[in-house]
């Protein structure tokens, strides 16, 4: 663990070097454009799919979303999503009752496993959707995650 942990370099230095080496061209190849419209969708899965460039999404058993059914705190809810759909291109996580439904969207190039593990905020108990784009079409699975209250003063 320590081996790789300690090999962290100062950010600007690396970025500067990388830029000089022509590895990164800001705003183009190295960073995706941020899809503002998709992140502004309120709470409709369909609207989110449209904002991402699709038409509709079909429920699929080839997507698995791993998370606890009950979160001890909504500020950090762990999710792992895996897709068995051929030609998986992207994996998104959506929380229906958050102010904006889309939480995160991951783009999976060839050679990378169609699996991501991350942590999401949930304002309250909600349906959570894993949305996968595979071979140009959208598929999803969903589950309810309960968010509980805690503590003695809150």
């Amino acid at each position, binding site marked *: 663990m320590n081996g790789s942990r300690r090999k962290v370099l100062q950010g600007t230095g690396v970025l500067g070097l990388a830029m000089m080496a022509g590895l990164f061209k800001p705003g183009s190849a190295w960073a995706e454009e941020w899809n503002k419209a998709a992140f502004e969708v309120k709470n409709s899965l369909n609207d989110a799919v449209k904002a991402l460039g699709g038409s509709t999404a079909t429920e699929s058993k080839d997507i698995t979303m791993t998370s606890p059914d009950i979160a001890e705190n909504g*500020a950090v809810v762990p999710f792992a999503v895996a897709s068995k759909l051929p030609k998986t291109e992207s994996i998104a996580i959506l929380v229906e009752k958050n102010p904006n439904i889309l939480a995160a969207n991951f783009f999976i190039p060839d050679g990378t496993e169609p699996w991501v593990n991350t942590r999401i905020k949930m304002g309250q108990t909600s349906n959570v959707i894993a949305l996968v784009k595979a071979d140009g079409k959208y598929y999803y699975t969903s589950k309810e995650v309960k968010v509980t209250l805690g503590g003695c003063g809150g």
Partner: protein
Amino acid sequence: MRPNRTIAAALLLAAGLGAGSPGAQEKSKAIQEIEKYRAALGDDNPAELWESRGEDLWKAKRGPKNASLEACDLGLGPGVVKGAYTVLPKYFEDSGKVEDLESRLVTCMVTLQGFTPEQAKKDPFGGPGKKVPMDALVAYVAAQSRGMKMNVAGTHPKEVEAYEMGRKIFFYHGGPHDFACETCHGADDKRIRLQDLPNLTKTSDAQRAYTTWPAYRVSQGEVRSMQWRLNDCFRQQRFPELEFASPASIALTMFLAKNANGGVMNAPAIKR
């Protein structure tokens, strides 16, 4: 580590040995899911970000004397960080006081780096958009005791005095709610909402609790020290504000730390 008791309870229920109450099955399910939640957070602990910032701060030349903290004696001799958290709080000849890690860091910031005590104690806890040195230093120092056993001496007369004072504070009821530390932490197998409450008068629970602080609190997105833990317990006890590095805070820490002797440090942990 943490789940043993609840998992055992869940297994009993699963085997049909549990109580017949209709709520029992749901209860165990809720707790099992909370255990899954805790397990999913696992070892990927943002406290590492504090640890590395703390290491940089420990070595950085700061303050009016432009000195680092590397010569600070945390109880095992100047500059010894490894294992230091396991022997604190401790009586220090140079200051003539019993000090926990945080108050000892204040002493070193004053003596080595030339800060005033007020400067060294200012902003002891971070918050949204506010990074403070103390949290990071505490995370770094505590992490260097990971895997080591708590070993607080508590034999010097001042240490004995602090322990006895801490013990009485633990049982001191006051405020509009009549709460003492003991109200929540004096009996076995209790929960507040869904959070397990360690019985801090019992060795195994005291060890389990003490050895997981400091901790990254996911509810706050911050690494919290034992000083913060006590400060916020008293807030919820409806007491006035416990002052950072105050005699009562150090006495109580002495009581809790010594009761945890033999427990294996696993901090900074990650918690709700």
